[in-house]
Structures are given as C-alpha cells and as structure tokens.
C-alpha cells in the first residue's frame, strides 16, 4: 500500500489517541470477521471443511457463519458465479452493512476459472463487486483459505478509521450500492445496457480493490454492441483501410532488415 505510510504519519500527527483508537478499531474488526453462510459450488465444500474440525476457522473467531447478510462481515464467494447468479450475489453484497469484505475463493470466482469460456459463466466476480482478497486454486486448500483470511486481517490492519465508509457523509469513499445487473435477452444488462453477453467476453472492466478506491477500472466499453461482435466485418473494413498500408510498410521494412 503506497498510501499507507502517509496515512500512518498523518495519524501520528493527529495524536496518540486517534491512532490508538484506530488500532483498537481495526483489532476489533480483524478479530471478529463473521462470514456469510454463502456457498456457490465446489469451493463451498472446502469452505465448510475449513470451518470444521481439521482446520477450524473458529480459531480466528470467524466460525459464526451468519445466514443473514445483515449480520455478516465477510462474503466468501466460494465457487463459480454464473450469469444467472450474479444479480443475487450483488444484491447480497449490497445488503451487507459496512465494513464488508469479499474473499474471492478459487479460480472460478476470481476469473471464471476453468469455466470461463462457458456461455453462462462470469469471468470473475470482481466485474460486479470489489474484491479484497483473491485466492487462486481449484479449489484452494482449506489452509489457503485460512491464509486468505490472514491476508485479509493484515489488510484490515492497514485500514484507517478516517476513511472508513459510512461514518459521516464526508468520508471519502462512500458506501455505495453496486448496480445489480438484470437479465436481458442476450446477457446481463445494467441500466438497459448489455454488459455481459452470453457467449462472449464481458463488456465491462473489473472493479479495483477497495484499497484503491473501489472504482470500476474502465467504463462500459461497447455499450452499443449487441450480441457477439456482429460489427466485426465493418470494423474490419475500417481498420483495413486505415492501417493496412501502414502495416504493410512496416512489414516491408522488417523484411528488408
């Protein structure tokens, strides 16, 4: 975290009390991360195994899997997120109160994993909600999930009481509701615009992680594009006329060299 040191020194200037309070606050949050009982697929079984005898997530104070998102701090997206499931996942995330964290467990939740070329599979949940920690693996070992929890804890340690969302209207990164996609005839839509067509790549970019401000890295790329690149030919012609000659030139040079 590049901004972390600055924040820390900033804090020191403001006095020991605030710094201590911040530390206490972070300690409280890191020691009591209650996950939501929310499993999607294969990884959910490993998530359960993590909570049970052999690995015992409870040691970290995180065994109280809450059934209601209102009482959960952590959403472990454990498994493949399909297009049909995304609206529910986003809605659940929106229902969680701040501070909330997301662990994207396993390859599928991170990037679609082995199923990423499937027509109904989302290429990573970070297209729709910001993710704090990614755990690769298919599925990750329970130990890897514990490691992810520790990574999350170390991240929470670096958070700053002043920048925590929802305290006061002026806190910079505001708590926000993330847009819930809706089902459309060709894929998922946000505000009537196709964002994740079935059988094609998503037309939106992923969210940056919350530490970086939770912004979408890029806006909807081709809002006018319906279906699987039907404008390919037209685009092809345009590009050809513009850059074919140039490219040929370059090639000639290369050949000569």
């Amino acid at each position, binding site marked *: 975290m590049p901004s972390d040191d600055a924040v820390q020194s900033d804090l020191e200037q403001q006095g020991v009390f605030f710094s201590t309070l911040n530390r206490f606050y972070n300690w409280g949050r890191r*020691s*009591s991360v209650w996950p939501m009982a929310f499993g999607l697929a294969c990884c959910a079984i490993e998530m359960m195994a993590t909570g049970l005898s052999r690995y015992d997530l*409870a040691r970290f104070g995180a*065994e109280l899997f809450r059934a*209601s998102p209102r009482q959960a701090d952590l959403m472990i997206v454990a498994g493949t997120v399909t297009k049909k499931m995304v609206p529910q996942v986003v809605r659940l995330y929106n229902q969680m*109160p701040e*501070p909330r964290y997301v662990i994207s467990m396993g390859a599928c939740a991170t990037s679609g994993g082995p199923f990423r070329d499937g027509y109904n599979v989302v290429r990573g949940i970070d297209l729709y909600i910001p993710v704090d920690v990614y755990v690769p693996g298919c599925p990750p070992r329970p130990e890897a999930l514990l490691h992810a929890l520790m990574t999350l804890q170390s991240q929470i340690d670096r958070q700053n009481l002043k920048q925590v969302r929802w305290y006061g209207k002026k806190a910079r990164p505001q*708590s926000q509701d993330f847009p819930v996609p809706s089902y459309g005839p060709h894929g998922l839509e946000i505000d009537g615009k196709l964002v994740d067509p079935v059988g094609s790549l998503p037309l939106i970019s992923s969210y940056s992680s919350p530490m970086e401000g939770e912004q979408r890295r890029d806006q909807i790329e081709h809002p006018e594009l319906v279906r699987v690149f039907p404008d390919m030919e037209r685009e092809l012609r345009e590009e050809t006329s513009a850059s074919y000659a140039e490219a040929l030139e370059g090639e000639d040079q290369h050949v000569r060299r």
Partner: protein
Amino acid sequence: MRDLIDGLLNTTLGLGAPDWLVSLISYVAIVTIIFLVAPFQMLFFTMYERRAIARMQDRIGPNRVGPEGAFQPIADGVKMFTKEDIVPAGADRWVHLLAPCVVVAPTMLLFAVVPWGPGMVPVDLNVGLLFFVAISSISAIGIMMAGWGSNNKFALLGAMRGVAQMISYEIPAVLSLLAAVLLAGSMSLVSLVNLQAGLPFVGMLAGIDLGLGWLIFTPVGFVGAICFFIAALAEGERTPFDIPEADSEIVAGYMTEYSGMKFGLFYLAQYILNFLLCAITATVFLGGWQFPGVNWLYERAISPANPAGNGLFNVLAGVLGVFAFLLKTYLLFYVMIWLRGAFPRLRVDQLMHFGWKFLIPLSLVNILSASLWVACMQWGAEQGMGAIEGWSPWARLALAFVLTFAINLVGYIALVRIQAPTRRRPSRLTGSIAVP
C-alpha cells in the same frame, strides 16, 4: 442491598442519612452493578458456548484473540458497535428501531430479583417468581415488533414462530414453577432458596444444614426442574427449540434484517435471557446459592438478626454463595450447549405438539404431586385430624416420596404412551402411474 447501604451509611459512618437517600443510593448502585454484570455474563456465555461446542466437535474454538481467545467477545462487541446500521427500505422505521430495546429491557429488569448469594438479592420481592414470569414474556412483543417492522417474510415467519413458541411455553414454565411455589408456600425467590437448606432428600429434617436440600432431589422438584428447563430452552430459543431463528429454514428468523448493534442487542438479550433462565432454574430447583458451608458462614456474619457477627464472614459467605450459584448456572448452561451440540431442532408443529400435549399435562400431574406432598408434610399440623396425624415427620416424608414418585412416573409413562407416533398419510402425489 438496601440494608447494606443503610448499614454502611447510618450504622458504620453514622451519617444519619434520610430514608429516601438510602433508597436512591442503593437503587443506583444496584442498577450500575446489573448493567455491568449483565453484558459481562453475555460476553462470557458466548465464549463459553463457542469453546465448549468446539470441543464437542473435535476442534479448538476461538483461541487466537487474546490469551486462549479470551478477548474474542470483546472484539465481537467492538465490531458490532462499529458496523453500519441499516434500516431496510420499506421497514417500519420506529418499530424496527424499538424492537431490540423492547427485547433487551425486560431481560435487564429480570436481574433485579435474582438472589446471587445470602443477603445478596437486589430486590427481594415477595412475588419474585411472578415478576420473573411476567416480565420475561414482554420480550415476545419485541420479537413480534422485530418481525413486523422488518418488512421481510422470513422475519415475519420467524416472529410468528417465536411468539407462538414463547406464549405456549410460558404455560408449562409457570405450571412447573407453581409446583415449587406450592412446596415453598411463597413466591419470593429468597424464601425458595432458604427452603432448600439441609440434606438431599430430607431437607432440614435431620437438623444438619449442608445446603443440599435442593428441590430437584424430590420427585416433584425433579419433574418440575425438567419441565421448567425444557420450557426454558424454548423460551430462550435454544436447540432443540431454536425454531424462531432456524437458519436452515428461515434464514435468521426475526433477526434477519438487523445489522450492527441492533443485532448485537438481540444477541445480548438472548444470552442474558439464557443466563437468567439457567439462574432461575438453579435458584428454584438447584438451591440457588445453597452450598455446604454457605449458611454456616452466613450465620456468623453481621446481619440485622446478628449484629455481633464478623464482617469477614459476610464477605466469605457472599463469595462462596455467588460461586455456588454461578457454578450451578454455568453447569445448566453447559447442558444447553450440550443439547445444542447433540441435537437437531424440532419442527414448529411438533414443538407445539410437545408443549401442549406433553409438557403441560406433565406439569399438571406434577402440581397434583406437589399438592399431595404438601398435604402429606403438613397434614395434621394445624388441622388436627386425618389418618396420618400421629405419624413422625420421617414417615410422612417417606409417604410423600412414594406417592409423588408413583404419580409422576405413571403420569410420564402414560403421556409417553399416548404420544405414540401418528402415522402420516403420504402427501397427495401427482403423476402417479401404476407400474408393473
């Protein structure tokens, strides 16, 4: 408590404080202590439950936050305090906000009548049990408010279940307490505890006071204790009766829409209520602070009856009494945890079935036994007539034991037999085709 303050101010310091000031000071002190003790109990209980149930499941439980996980509940508290507070869209805002308070406040009030040790009862009401029963049912309103105010179907379902369950199980709870009240002839919790001095089974008959004459050693008390404890499980929403918040069926019941400290309050109320239910069971049936040595110490301590006593004994009696009381309470809570670790929950209709068709009749039978017991023990003392008038107290006790034991056993067996599982018709199935 008031006596203590009075003694401190007027006798020891000789200030001659007016009556109202003593009362005021004592109430403030009581309230402060209760507000300190109650959350501490809750914190301890959550930790206790998590560690104990982890052990039952071959694992360790929270052990990384503080030494052996001791600060885990504090961390939970900090987190809950700092969590965002959400009022769901479409919720009835004020009802939603008030519900947790309505649930927590009565449970706090209940602390007022719990006798912690000899002479250590905040308020010695002469209708202590009635107070307890009456106040504890107020939280049903809070639960209904929570369910209604949340604008959530699961919450509503949970609230309905919760209220139905609480109201149904009030009855067996009251009936089984009634048996104890019959024996004691008083509704004061202090007099109930005082009754249970002496030896097991015989009470004060032998004249030796070991503080073990608990009601649970009599057939009446035993059945009463079981009935009350089961009803307490239902009222405290513990497994196997945790139906209002059955997370595998209706998400989190009436708490579904509550976040942050509002949820924390429900959590608090629940654990405090559990503590109190265990405490009342311990007080009424397990002798409260009665323990070998407590009475002996207390008799030698300063009190209005014995102004020449030793102040140190007062402290020792208090410590031992509180220790005994808490030990019993925690053991009872261990039983609750144990049940939670072992059993699934009942279905809502089975719960009602069990409450109305088994528990209530059994406690009625128990009341019959209790009145017989009272009759046997007291018959002839004043009335001066009857067949057993001239019997020695030992013979009367034996007769009461045999009679009540027989009645209770017969009642239990008969009820179990009646409850033979009813065979359910298979539900109407469509698409059934005769297959060769």
